[in-house]
């Protein structure tokens, strides 16, 4: 079934009786060429690009819950490519280019909205850093513009510019950044993979990884054993548990990150606004809710909910930046489990087991990475070679110290990112 404007009109006039399920809910076969553990955004994108780019369609995606029920449905939906360091910058640049063609490629409306993201700064040193970052972004081939307070007042009239604590000196704008409908991204990749023959298997928890003489042979699941030539672990949020099934210990600590949404309001916030000093970032969904997030709760946690101290801190940051949101009523809050790596950058790599590949450590930047991550992971699984834009996401960078990507410059150790 292809989506088109004509189809929407036709269905609308005929009682919407022609719509069919977007993907097949498959039952597991005995064996596959590739088994992907994890039916979130990254796992589904990996399956899609394996089929689309490499013609590998004898693939199963195993999901212990339901498709897209993890972090891909628990984020603040921001898509951007404004990284500073080599390694990250070309990867997110590639991912943003994939986003820009994603809806046509998938024939699926992921509501990708390039409304622009503005990162604010509050003193001269931060302005220098923003200029430097902007130049790095432009050298990468992406867009960045420096906005003066005058520019900002025209587009963001609702900020508190003259406050004493964090007076607003300007902002770095990336016009091609924006948001997307997070669930639709998972559904679109699921549909695209399923249409090409990939089996999407829900309620199928992996309980073991079969390894023989250093080669991966398959997986044990709650729906029986499945043989596989190659296995890809794509389960950010639960990486340590699944990797432990293969005898691996990872440079990852899991943390909870909270997000919030208000009741639906009339359009008032047209961009993604990032307030780094309060670690507060906000956008308005198409439904009208103000969607915003904060920093980690800063202790290891697998509770997909947060604690009140960080909730209070996020509200304070929001009120500091834009006092008008004090009148909005909070509708929901939730938490997602972040794979935090020591340097704050992700991992896409082989493992010491032949045929076993690992994708994880997305910290709090996984959503915008979904297309790029799937594209590069599929390349690695299909060819055995790293895909150039993701070639620096190595697992051994912590041991050797080569290629660490510490965007915040705080040092490559846990609890600093």
């Amino acid at each position, binding site marked *: 079934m292809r989506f088109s404007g004509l189809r929407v009109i036709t269905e609308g006039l005929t009682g919407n009786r022609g719509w069919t399920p977007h993907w097949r809910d498959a039952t597991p076969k005995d064996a596959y060429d590739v088994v992907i553990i994890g039916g979130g955004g990254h796992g589904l994108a990996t399956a899609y690009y394996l089929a689309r780019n490499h013609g590998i369609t004898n693939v199963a995606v195993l999901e212990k819950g339901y498709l897209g029920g993890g972090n891909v449905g628990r984020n603040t939906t921001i898509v951007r490519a404004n990284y500073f360091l080599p390694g990250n910058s070309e990867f997110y640049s590639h991912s943003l280019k994939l986003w820009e063609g994603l809806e046509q490629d998938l024939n699926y409306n992921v509501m990708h909205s390039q409304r622009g993201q503005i990162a604010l700064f509050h003193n001269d040193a931060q302005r220098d850093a923003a200029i430097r970052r902007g130049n790095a972004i432009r050298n990468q081939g992406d867009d960045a513009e420096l906005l003066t307070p005058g520019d900002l007042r025209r587009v963001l009239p609702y900020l508190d510019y003259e406050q004493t604590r964090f007076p607003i000196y300007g902002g770095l704008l990336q016009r091609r950044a924006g948001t997307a409908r997070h669930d639709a991204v998972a559904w679109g990749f699921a549909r695209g993979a399923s249409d090409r023959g990939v089996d999407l298997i829900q309620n199928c928890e992996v309980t073991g990884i079969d390894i023989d003489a250093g080669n991966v042979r398959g997986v044990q699941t709650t729906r029986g054993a499945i043989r596989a030539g190659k296995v890809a672990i794509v389960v950010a949020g*639960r990486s*340590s*548990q699944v990797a432990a099934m293969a005898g691996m*210990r*990872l*440079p*990852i*600590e*899991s943390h909870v990150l909270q997000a919030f949404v208000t009741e639906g309001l009339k359009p008032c916030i047209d961009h993604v606004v990032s307030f780094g000093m309060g670690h507060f970032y906000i956008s308005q969904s198409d439904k009208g809710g103000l969607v915003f997030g904060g920093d980690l709760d*800063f*202790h*290891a*946690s*697998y*509770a997909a909910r947060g*604690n009140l*101290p960080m909730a209070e801190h996020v509200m304070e940051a929001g009120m500091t930046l834009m006092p008008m949101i004090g009148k909005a009523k909070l509708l929901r809050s939730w938490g997602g489990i972040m794979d935090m790596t*020591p340097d704050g950058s992700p991992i896409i790599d082989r493992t010491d087991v032949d045929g076993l590949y690992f994708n994880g450590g997305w910290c709090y930047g996984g959503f915008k990475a979904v297309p790029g991550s799937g594209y590069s992971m599929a390349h690695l699984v299909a060819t055995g070679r790293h895909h150039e834009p993701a070639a620096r996401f190595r697992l051994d960078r*912590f*041991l*050797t110290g080569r290629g660490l990507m510490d965007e915040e410059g705080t040092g*490559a*150790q*846990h*609890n600093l990112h």
Partner: protein
Amino acid sequence: MRITCPVCGERDRREFHYKGDAVALNRPDPDAGDAAWDDYIHTRDNPAGETRDLWYHETGCAAWIVVTRNTVSHEVLDTRLASDVVRAAGERGGEVRK
């Protein structure tokens, strides 16, 4: 989440700074080699369940505390002064964690 400081009693989580896994009490010898240091600094068991980590009572008595807690339920199961944990381990002649 509330944490019981062995010195000050039960206090709000906001009084404490989180350091991370209590592996920090097992610092390797300077010449232990790259693998031991990589393991110490970067690699984590990262359990979904009971864990032991180090907290600093920053706005209280400034004690370092070993907290045993559940990472899924956020339940705090046990708290001890890190100095006591280290001393007890030294008397046993063993590693702090084992």
